[in-house]
């Protein structure tokens, strides 16, 4: 029937002059639908990113070159005055030192412990889900809450940690006075919240490692520890790079935990634990109320994060690739051994 139906139309052309045009219109509509929809669907992200991500980053540079107070708004163009002002403030340099110190104290132990926990989880455990959920629990505690809890645990007077140290006869540590001690305390907050999360990422990577590699290693007589270092670590190298990079980007911008480490929220009496983001906040909205200078800090921090990110990527890539080189030859040998033994048993 559908084949026949156009025929009467051709016989009577005067009947419906509008019909072909309507078909054309809906076809054109459908073609536009196909052509435009992909762009339409991705546009919310790009529009939002342009307004709230890209534009502010670029505009930060503009603001940093002007006098710009929180209440008074835009002032004169002053070139790099804001940057030289920042460089002249000892608090800025102290904040950089603190940021790096806290970052190193948090990221290095965190990645190492996370890999160990992942290796523990990557076994034929009973109640797998329970253990996985157990290590993830701290992730749902807000950084502000973690900061307040640990701020109290690391209290200088009658804090839990000092109490425990006293039990072993160790003198109380002045966590809120000594710079390094405060960094350890703040780094422990970061580690508390993220170690389990990263362990699960590593666990997923470990489970994707082909089991034949382990079987081959067992055939070669490699013990658990040897298997871990010669197979597991090189095999999850991409994931290690990923975790190190994300913890770098996050770690260098740490704000919440140091902000609530004491009541004043200004990074300590002599800025012992004032991080660069906290310094940025203090310059912009705290004591100086100078958005121009704060923008200069933001730009500097942005550059630092990008540069450190690249360096980190290079180092991590180097380390784990050299590990992989060693094992590719090894696994090839193992594979050959496995093939030999299977031939023998068959």
């Amino acid at each position, binding site marked *: 029937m559908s084949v026949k139906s156009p025929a009467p139309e051709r016989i009577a052309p005067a009947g419906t002059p509008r019909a072909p045009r309507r078909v054309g219109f809906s076809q054109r509509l459908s073609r536009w639908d196909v052509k435009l929809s992909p762009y339409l669907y991705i546009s919310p992200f790009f529009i939002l990113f342009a307004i709230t991500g890209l534009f502010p980053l670029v505009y930060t540079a503009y603001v940093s070159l002007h006098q710009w107070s929180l209440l008074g708004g835009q002032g004169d163009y002053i070139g790099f005055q804001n940057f030289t002002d920042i460089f002249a403030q000892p608090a800025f340099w102290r904040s950089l030192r603190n940021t790096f110190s806290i970052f190193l104290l948090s990221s290095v132990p965190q990645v190492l412990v996370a890999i160990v926990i992942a290796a*523990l989880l990557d*076994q034929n455990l009973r109640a797998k889900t329970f253990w996985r959920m157990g290590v993830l629990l701290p992730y749902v505690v807000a950084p502000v*809450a973690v900061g307040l809890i640990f701020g109290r645990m690391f209290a200088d007077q009658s804090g839990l940690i000092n109490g425990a140290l006293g039990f072993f006869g160790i003198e109380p540590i002045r966590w809120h006075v000594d710079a390094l001690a405060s960094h350890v305390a703040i780094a422990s907050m970061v580690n508390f919240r993220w170690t389990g999360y990263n362990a699960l990422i590593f666990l997923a990577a470990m489970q994707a490692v082909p089991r034949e590699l382990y079987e081959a290693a067992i055939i070669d007589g490699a013990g658990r520890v040897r298997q871990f270092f010669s197979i597991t670590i090189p095999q999850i190298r991409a994931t290690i790079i990923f975790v190190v990079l994300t913890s770098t980007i996050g770690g260098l911008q740490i704000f919440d935990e140091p902000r609530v480490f004491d009541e004043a929220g200004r990074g300590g009496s002599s800025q012992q634990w004032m991080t660069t983001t906290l310094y940025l906040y203090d310059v912009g909205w705290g004591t100086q109320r100078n958005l121009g200078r704060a923008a200069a800090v933001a730009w500097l921090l942005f550059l630092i994060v990008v540069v450190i990110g690249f360096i980190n990527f290079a180092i991590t890539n180097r380390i784990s690739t050299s590990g992989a080189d060693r094992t590719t030859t090894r696994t090839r040998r193992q594979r050959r051994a496995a093939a030999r033994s299977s031939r023998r048993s068959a």
Partner: protein
Amino acid sequence: MSSVPTTRQTAGAGAARAAARRAGRSKVGGYDRRPGVVTYVLLGVAVLIGLGPLYYTLLLGSSDPVAIAQSSLPQLLPDASLFENFSKVINSDAFDFWKAFGNSLIIALFTSATTVLFSTLAGFSFAKLTFKGRRPLLVFVIATMAVPTQLGVIPLYIIMAKIGWIGTLQAVIVPALVTAFGVFWMTQYLEEALPYELIEAARVDGASMFRTFWSIAMPAARPAAAMLALFTFVTQWTNFFWPSIVLNQSNPTLPVAVRLLQANYFVDYSLVMAGVFLITLPLIILFVFAGRQLVAGIMAGAVKG
């Protein structure tokens, strides 16, 4: 050394039993071997380190300032004064607790919904539709994940001040409507989970692009969408930096409120800790019900990322 079943076939049942015994004893061990007590003890310690600070919060929350000042561990069990402190926090003059709670809930729910919708739309487009510039645009999205956009706060603040949004919830919601991570996540998922045949079938049936998205892609994306919603919810509920800049005392979210609590009640840490527990409790409840999905989500993201 071959596997025990192979031994059974080649050398007989007795040899297999001996091999199994040997395998159980040897340090090497197969992958399927049950781990020893040490593993459970170490994992137990890890879980306790996670639980300890939360329990400590309960203890301090049911204590009083004098006891906290004198002893590093005022008591060993929480007691009824915990609830007194809860009600003191809820009825505090420093901020309106229920308003802060409502604000946190609105922000977290709203951004979760929009993030899922916009990310799934973009993910559908990137994963299953062909258009010019698809590849470079997707690379761009991934690259933005590595950009510390948090550092654009100053112009963002200037914009918000100019349009009069300081102190309003829009100022927190709008920048968080959709994330690069969400787009990337849904693209990855839909690439595998949505067969082309289904889309073609819908198109042949005359469905428009949007209809195809709504009736075919959306249902297929449901598992990943649920996880994305969960992660967005947790992120927004715990978010502090930006809200603490644009929101003020009269209209805070819970993390901003708990900082107010600290600034106002630092003489009484039992109240601060009760407050800390109150803001954490909703997410702990969420975790009890959806923790399994969070675990699965983190692990799924890791394999692909």
